[in-house]
């Protein structure tokens, strides 16, 4: 069956279905209960599954992620909501030193089936402390999986895959896409670590990370208008990294552009560019398209220029194609 849902509704549906399927799945987070989430993602779930399984928490990011770790060790499959990924800064000990390391630290004996859902605010006028994209931090932590759904369908499928995963997963949801509508098919396989080729193309590979996807799609259209045939890959997971998908595209195109909303320096594009240069004989140097190395500005006109737009992506495409106006 195929249904049309908004991004946030897809999140809601994934949660509801997983809670229905598996009684061990519980939700905790600020405002997730009675109010149904600050942005509506958990609407109706407390009424449906009861207060033991859907709990409003105090503003205690470290505490609630730690609570999730303990609950996971004790047999639940908690989904913890941390409102914005900027607030993960408060919870990183439990996420990076506990959840991510327990399997390793116990010689493989403990598993921590914890999901942390959190928003990337980038592009919604939320400013320096609510607009960051911190996926590179998470991807750098061995033991964590990092999902970045960019479409309603992925908001649904990736979250379900995350909940079924026996290791901790951070799902970075995109506020920019929050109200986007999309088709959702039921029967999609639930795999972690699979990228998606959104558009086949022959001239260059464009890898888009998380919420940048619609701008990347627009850039593909613009580029097509200029005679550049772009293959667009939506990374979907920063870890596990679907390098096979990227590499097979690169073997065809020989050219790579990466776009993301995280800061460029030590951002996800650094790893992709480094791998590409290490492992594939490229026809041109990789071009990364990313914000400058500053926090996210508040003023809309600045924010607009700060995050990579379709124009900048197309310019990067031209550059990697060796066109002089790149």
């Amino acid at each position, binding site marked *: 069956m195929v249904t049309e849902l908004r991004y946030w509704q897809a999140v809601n549906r994934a949660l509801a279905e997983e809670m229905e399927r598996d009684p061990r799945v519980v939700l905790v987070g*600020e*405002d997730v*209960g*009675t*109010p149904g989430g*600050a942005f509506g993602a958990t609407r109706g779930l407390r009424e449906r599954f009861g207060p033991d399984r859907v709990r*409003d*928490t*105090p*503003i*205690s*990011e*470290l*505490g609630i992620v730690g609570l999730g770790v303990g609950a996971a060790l004790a047999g639940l499959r908690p989904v913890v909501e941390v409102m914005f990924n*900027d*607030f993960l*800064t*408060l919870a990183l000990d439990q996420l990076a030193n506990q959840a991510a390391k327990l399997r390793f630290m116990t010689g493989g004996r403990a598993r921590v089936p914890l999901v942390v859902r959190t928003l990337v605010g980038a592009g*919604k*006028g*939320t*400013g*320096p*402390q*609510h607009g960051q994209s911190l996926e590179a931090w998470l991807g750098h932590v061995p033991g964590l999986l990092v999902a970045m759904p960019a479409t309603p369908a992925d908001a649904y499928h990736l979250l379900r895959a995350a909940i079924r995963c026996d290791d901790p997963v951070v799902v970075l949801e995109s506020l920019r896409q929050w109200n986007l509508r999309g088709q959702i098919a039921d029967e999609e396989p639930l795999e972690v670590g699979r990228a998606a080729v959104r558009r086949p193309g022959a001239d260059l590979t464009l890898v888009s990370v998380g919420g940048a996807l619609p701008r990347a799609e627009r850039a593909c259209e613009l580029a097509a208008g200029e005679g550049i045939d772009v293959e667009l890959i939506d990374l979907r997971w920063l870890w596990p990294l679907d390098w096979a998908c990227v590499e097979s595209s690169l073997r065809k195109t020989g050219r790579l552009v990466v776009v993301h909303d995280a800061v460029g*320096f030590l951002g996800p594009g650094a790893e992709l560019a480094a791998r590409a240069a290490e492992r594939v004989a490229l026809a041109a140097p990789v071009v990364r398209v990313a914000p*400058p*190395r*500053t*926090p996210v*500005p*508040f*003023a*809309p*006109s*600045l924010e607009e*220029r*700060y995050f990579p737009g379709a124009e900048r992506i197309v310019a990067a495409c031209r550059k990697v194609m060796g066109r002089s106006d790149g």
Partner: protein
Amino acid sequence: MSDHAPRPRLARDLYVTQLRIRRFEETVARLFAQGRLPGFVHLSIGQEAVAAGACAALRDDDVITSTHRGHGHCIAKGGHLGRMMAELFGGRDGYCAGLGGSMHIADLERGILGANGIVGAGIPIATGAAYAFQAQGTGRVALAFFGDGAVNEGAFHEGLNLAALWHLPVVYVCEDNGYAELTATDLHTAGPGVAARAVAYGMHAEEVDGTDALAVHDAVARAVECCRAKEGPALVVAHAPRWHGHFEGDPQRYRPMGELEEARRRDPVGRLGHRLLAEGWADESWLTSVTAEVEAEIAAAVAFAERSLPLELEAMLHLAGAEASW
């Protein structure tokens, strides 16, 4: 403002401060509803007496840290309305040159160390300023504003313990407006209350009606006195309901029937106006004239803000010290 002002003058000053906050925020609400202000806006209408009373107990060289709901604190500590409004518009003449927005307004010259988008984060910062004042031996005091929700962050605990341990000259002002976002206080804070927590760190604590600016002033003045006498820190809990949603646009479906009406009956501005008249501290014509003055001031602030253009990206990089890193 001095805490030695005679009562009538103090009361009049508090009235004017509250009125300036009220009118400023009513204007912001209107501009926001018109779609003219980007990002998130959190208003403190109904809580003006806390900001006004607390800041009136401080010297000009004392400092405050503020919150996401910080316009009142900033105005009460002497912030410039035009530069505040310009910041909300994202203009270059705003306090943060349009880079921060509502949640980051700061004015170091007036001792406003900053609003904050991270709940609770101002608490250790104010504590650190108090440490500096103690080490410098200047007799200055720091004051941290925060909400009832913030008391469950580790930052509250760590900050208060440090301050109590070192007898730092810092006053903690908890504004209890009954909610953390959409979650009521009894769902997020365990135990007998915030004052009892302060006592458990060994510090003085007092509760006060946060809709009574004079009462807030007196309680905070006592706390400040404590600090100047090297007997700090101290905590004041001020109870005052908010009238607006958590953020502008919040439909407030989670609020029980009658709560808002009850809140409006405790109007801190109207209440102090009545008192001024009843005590003979001011007459109707004074009220009329200050209202006109305040309205003119707000109109000027909006006009100032409307004229302020956003920064260019290059100027932003320059301000951030990041030209070279683009």
